[in-house]
């Protein structure tokens, strides 16, 4: 399909009765069409299934908005088009609108067995039926009725699963939710359509229902009986209290088949306590052991299930988190699934907070909506992650030369990426992390890092492994999540930021350029990445881009002005450069200068590889001189010391050209338009 037509609405009718279809079209042709908009109507006949028919029509239309409806549904709201576009334009996270929906699907998956919201005319021979509106103007639902489904993004219908005429609607709702979109039912004073419902053919309904539950939910009645195949490897070191807390907590976590406790050389009585308990455990009695060897020892000496969860004492998974990880590992070639955590600090008595308090904390955490959702990642959080057991056959065991758990997992993850084995973060697998007590608890941590660094450098050709995306750059890409556009990241490193862009904008084409061949070798597995030095003013891509990203790169270039100028040729008209640039005027640098010091470091503001230094005015001039319009410039600030505050006050008194934020800003993030 070519470019999406933003001002077009396509009505898609799966048709088996010519008269009903004509009547359905009659109402569509009586709708008011907002100025600048156009409509088209496609009828799908002789489809193999509803999902197959809808896929066929979806692919045939370039309309942004698509209305999938039954032939016996007549749209009676004359301003239907205006109203749906208005809802979609108000919130780009809304993926699909329905007329009737289930805020919470019953365990059976059968919508009408639970509470539904929405409004529709259902004139029957005996009654007129009108469902009552939901609790709010736009009620988020888990599923909408297939009689009328309106989308603003094209997501394939699951014809691979639903090859008949039922549950395609609930499935499509869940597909949108899986991708992070909202499915909503608007509150209506008057229904927008009439459904001339008749007797439904439910011959294949039960089979489709079971498929639906299997794909999207655990069927509750089977849940208790079903044997989950999850092994938890719980590691601890001198944290008896946290270990006991975590073990108590795990009693109510679902899905655990067996638990193996690994005591990594504790000297605080952990072993003595464990010997009085009935847990299966392993004590490294010769002292603290590096995690490469530790994890391998467990994997080779203990029987594990299909899903192996690695957990640290002091991490508290939510009730269903492990089941979510187990489920996530069933997705395609996923080998590792990571959890998301909300770090907290235990109170002064050393006790963890109660469950209700933690749950409330989670509910208030807007970063991770409570929905099934997966994000690709370069590496999971090592404090709680899960692996499919067969991944250890495909990707081998951990490297015993490495000790620090983060390094061990980084190495393992990079090997996975090279083998095209997937790693995801499961946003529904949530854990509370007692950060004050499960952070770097090992006194050996510094030595481990130093030794690992040498090994990793030899193995991977890199000093640093940038596994986290630069979210402040990604946040400045303000596009609809379903939009197709192209992004080039200069200095893409391993591709973490581009990976995050792919997560947020599934249709975005990402390209990476980096001067480090070893990094490109990894990044090319997740994006189109090439080796190249932007300072040579050449780009090895033919494309033009909507965005070019420089994440802490411009200060490393010999010719930043020429590079910014050259970008005009490879940016589309109206395209943007987004760049993060360290601020050399930061008060820590100024204070050092006053003390007579300008000490280069390995990383940070005075990174020894910085060739150009920038302040706010230099950044503005850089883009202004090359004909860009700076649309947005913002700063990242950190706390400053009392001495730095005092120096800043003095400096502010010496010039009327400077302001406080210019000294406090550590790094600028700028968005400039061509």
């Amino acid at each position, binding site marked *: 399909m070519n470019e999406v037509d933003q001002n077009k609405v396509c009505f898609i009718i799966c048709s088996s009765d010519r*008269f009903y279809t004509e*009547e359905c079209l*009659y*109402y569509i042709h*009586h709708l008011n069409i907002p100025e600048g908009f156009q409509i088209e109507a496609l009828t799908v006949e002789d489809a193999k299934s509803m999902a197959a028919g809808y896929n066929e029509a979806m692919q045939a239309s370039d309309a942004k908005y698509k209305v999938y409806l039954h032939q016996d549904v*007549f749209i*009676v709201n004359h301003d239907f088009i205006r109203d749906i576009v208005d809802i979609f334009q108000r919130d780009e996270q809304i993926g699909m609108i329905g007329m009737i929906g289930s805020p919470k699907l019953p365990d059976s998956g059968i919508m009408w067995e639970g509470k539904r919201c929405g409004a529709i*005319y259902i*004139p*029957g*021979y*005996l009654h*007129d039926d009108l469902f009552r509106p939901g609790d709010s103007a736009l009620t988020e639902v888990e599923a909408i009725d297939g009689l009328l489904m309106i989308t603003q993004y094209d997501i394939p219908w699951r014809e691979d699963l639903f090859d008949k005429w039922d549950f395609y609607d609930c499935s499509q709702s869940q597909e949108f939710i899986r991708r992070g979109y909202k499915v909503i039912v608007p509150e209506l004073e008057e229904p927008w359509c*009439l459904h*001339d419902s*008749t*007797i439904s053919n439910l011959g294949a309904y039960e089979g489709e229902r079971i498929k639906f539950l299997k794909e999207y939910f655990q069927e509750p009645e089977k849940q208790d009986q079903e044997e989950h195949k999850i092994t938890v490897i719980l590691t601890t070191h001198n944290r008896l209290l946290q270990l006991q807390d975590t073990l108590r907590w795990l009693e109510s976590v679902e899905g655990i088949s067996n638990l193996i406790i690994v005591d990594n050389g504790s000297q605080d009585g952990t072993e003595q306590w464990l010997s009085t308990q009935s847990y299966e455990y392993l004590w490294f009695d010769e002292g603290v052991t590096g995690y490469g060897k530790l994890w391998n020892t467990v994997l080779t000496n203990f029987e594990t299930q299909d899903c192996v969860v690695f957990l640290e004492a002091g991490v508290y998974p939510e009730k269903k988190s492990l089941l979510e990880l187990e489920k996530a590992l069933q997705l395609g070639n996923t080998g590792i699934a990571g959890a998301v955590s909300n770090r907290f600090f235990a109170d002064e008595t050393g006790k963890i907070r109660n469950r209700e308090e933690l749950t409330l904390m989670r509910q208030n955490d807007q970063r991770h909506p409570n929905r099934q959702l997966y994000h690709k990642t370069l590496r999971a959080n090592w404090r709680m992650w899960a692996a499919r057991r067969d991944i250890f056959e495909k990707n081998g065991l951990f490297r015993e030369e490495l000790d620090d758990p983060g390094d061990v997992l980084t190495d393992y993850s990079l090997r996975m990426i090279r083998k095209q084995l997937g790693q995801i973060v499961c946003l529904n697998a949530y854990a509370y992390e007692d950060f004050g007590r499960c952070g770097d608890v090992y006194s050996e941590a510094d030595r481990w890092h130093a030794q690992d660094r040498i090994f990793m450098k030899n193995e991977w050709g890199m000093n640093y492994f940038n596994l986290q995306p630069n979210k402040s750059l990604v946040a400045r890409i303000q596009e609809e999540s379903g939009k197709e556009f192209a992004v080039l990241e200069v200095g893409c490193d391993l591709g973490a930021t581009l990976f995050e862009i792919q997560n947020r904008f599934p249709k975005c084409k990402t390209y990476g350029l980096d001067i480090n061949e070893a990094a490109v070798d990894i990044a090319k597995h997740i994006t189109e990445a090439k080796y190249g030095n932007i300072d040579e003013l050449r780009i090895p891509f033919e494309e033009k881009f909507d965005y070019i990203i420089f994440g802490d790169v411009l200060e490393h270039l010999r010719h930043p002005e020429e590079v910014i100028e050259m970008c005009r040729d490879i940016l589309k008209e109206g395209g943007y450069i987004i760049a993060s640039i360290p601020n050399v005027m930061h008060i820590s640098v100024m204070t050092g200068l006053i003390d007579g010091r300008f000490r280069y470091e390995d990383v940070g503001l005075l990174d020894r590889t910085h060739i150009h230094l920038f302040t706010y005015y230099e950044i503005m001039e850089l883009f202004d001189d090359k004909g860009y319009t700076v649309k947005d410039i913002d700063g990242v600030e950190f706390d400053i010391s009392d001495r730095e505050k005092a120096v800043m006050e003095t400096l502010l008194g010496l010039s009327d050209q400077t302001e406080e934020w210019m000294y406090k800003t550590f790094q600028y993030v700028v968005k400039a338009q061509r």
Partner: protein
Amino acid sequence: MDSQSLRKQVDELLSMKKCEETVSLLMENEEIAKYDRDLLKIFYLIPVCNTEREAGQQTLFTKVSGIEELLERDRRVKFYLRRIAFDVLDDEEEFCTFCRQNQVSLTELFIETYCNAVHKEKVQAFIQRKVAEGKLKA
């Protein structure tokens, strides 16, 4: 009896214009009719026939020659009434001509309106206006 046999018998009775027999057959086999989409629709048209008969009018089931014709007529009446209800009836004259040509009685129109139309008062007012204009037969 299964729904296929019932359907066949109803079709034959309608072709012979035997209204009372059709009604009796459907009433006796209500449980079977309820699970057949078409027969259910015909079942719910029985009140139209009963009311017409009580008023001494020709009954609906004698105005058609079989199931297909009855369902097609019923569908068209229903569609017209809905178009009236939602202000999308483009050609009022076409509707009146259809009613006259197919001998659609006011009884049939009002019962259909009562059972099938939304905004019933608006539809009833429209029908009465057409009667007053002489476009529909009282």
